[in-house]
């Protein structure tokens, strides 16, 4: 019989916003009813966001705005805030992130989804932050946000885009986000907002680590689109680090990530 004691932890999984989203809570109250209620509220918040922002729902605010059935001046505070963030994201990334997504026919279509996921998870996670004596970790479709103040740092592996059953390296996460963009799961469908053309084959994936999931996600998306040149851009963004995987599987990272990179 083993005598090692393990800290209580509980994990929830739900499909929301078209993604599997999991929450793990670690700490003495992981199994408390109150904790369960807080996690349920987290998911309810995400479902509310989905109703507003889904491009798959004809009655979402974003869909109404797209069709011209809603004026930009009359959008809800949440949508207005997201559109402002999208404008900031475009500026931060030199246009490699743009909510006005280029379409194959050359037109542009409003799609803030690339920013909404991270933003929504981060906002909903405010409830998790308020849990007493608890470490928590959220994984939303491959993007990670967490906080570990009581126990050991969360160990977040970065997937190997050449073989998704393997990992490239493990990053310790005390507080913050890890976001990865790549084509491994979705196929090649990304168009570069800067050119309207398909993204070049220069990277297999881009991972960004930083304090905010919203911005880590945006920077990772833009880095994947922009290619190796994005490394300097992320390095110049205070608090953020990047890991790029080239088509041969080679890894390059900003200075803060070098120690975690796999040995070639």
């Amino acid at each position, binding site marked *: 019989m083993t005598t090692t004691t*393990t800290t209580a932890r509980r994990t929830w999984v739900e499909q929301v916003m078209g*993604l599997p989203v999991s929450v793990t809570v670690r700490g003495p109250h992981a199994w408390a009813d109150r904790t369960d209620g807080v996690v349920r509220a987290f998911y309810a918040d995400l479902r509310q966001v989905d109703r507003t922002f889904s491009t798959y729902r004809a009655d979402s605010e974003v869909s109404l705005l797209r069709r011209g059935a809603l004026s930009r001046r009359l959008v809800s505070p949440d949508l207005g805030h997201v559109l402002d963030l999208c404008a900031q994201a475009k500026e931060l990334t030199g246009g490699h992130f743009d909510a006005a997504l280029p379409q194959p026919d050359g037109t542009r279509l409003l799609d803030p989804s690339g920013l909404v996921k991270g933003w929504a998870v981060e906002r909903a996670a405010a409830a998790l932050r308020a849990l007493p004596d608890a470490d928590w*970790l959220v*994984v939303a*479709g491959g993007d990670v946000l967490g906080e570990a103040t009581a126990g050991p740092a969360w160990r977040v*592996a970065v997937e190997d885009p050449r073989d998704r059953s393997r990992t490239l390296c493990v990053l310790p996460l005390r507080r913050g986000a*890890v976001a990865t963009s790549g084509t491994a799961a979705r196929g090649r469908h990304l168009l570069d907002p800067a050119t309207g053309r398909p993204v070049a084959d220069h990277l297999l994936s881009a991972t960004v680590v930083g304090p905010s999931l919203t911005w880590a996600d945006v920077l990772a998306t833009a880095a994947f689109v922009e290619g190796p040149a994005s490394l300097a851009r992320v390095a110049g963004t205070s608090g953020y680090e990047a890991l790029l995987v080239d088509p041969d599987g080679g890894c390059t990272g900003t200075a803060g990530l070098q120690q975690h990179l796999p040995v070639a």
Partner: protein
Amino acid sequence: MRKILLAFMTTLAAVVSLFGYRTSTPHPVSVATSTVAAAGSGGTTTTDGGTTAATPAAPSTGAASSTVTGDVVQTRWGPVQVRITVASGKVTAASAVQVPSGNGRDAEINGYAVPVLDQETVSAQSASIDAVSGATVTSDGYVTSLQSALDAAGL
């Protein structure tokens, strides 16, 4: 086609790896249920039928392992059902016991997915990984069936 397959297979693998945290085990964990059970003090109990049939276990009871099967979930590819093995409150193995069939893809799924699930679960445990960051994945049936298995296991 293969990309879609990889996407939802890896979703489960990635999600499952979240639970693969087994600090109390000093040696590599085997995927074989019998081996896991042998490492503990009790036998193996099998509970089928998902949430309705299983009695939720306390989160950190003894080292005996049990197998819990999730609900059958209909997906656009066909029915999906996931089974997990739990020991000491941790998932020690996961596999798809029912996969979409009748569309010519079942052999590929069976040949590829189940070994990956097992391997991913175990490798994640040996490295004590809490989460995997990767390209966006979407899924439906696998995660639903997995959750029902986790619920049934009281995890």
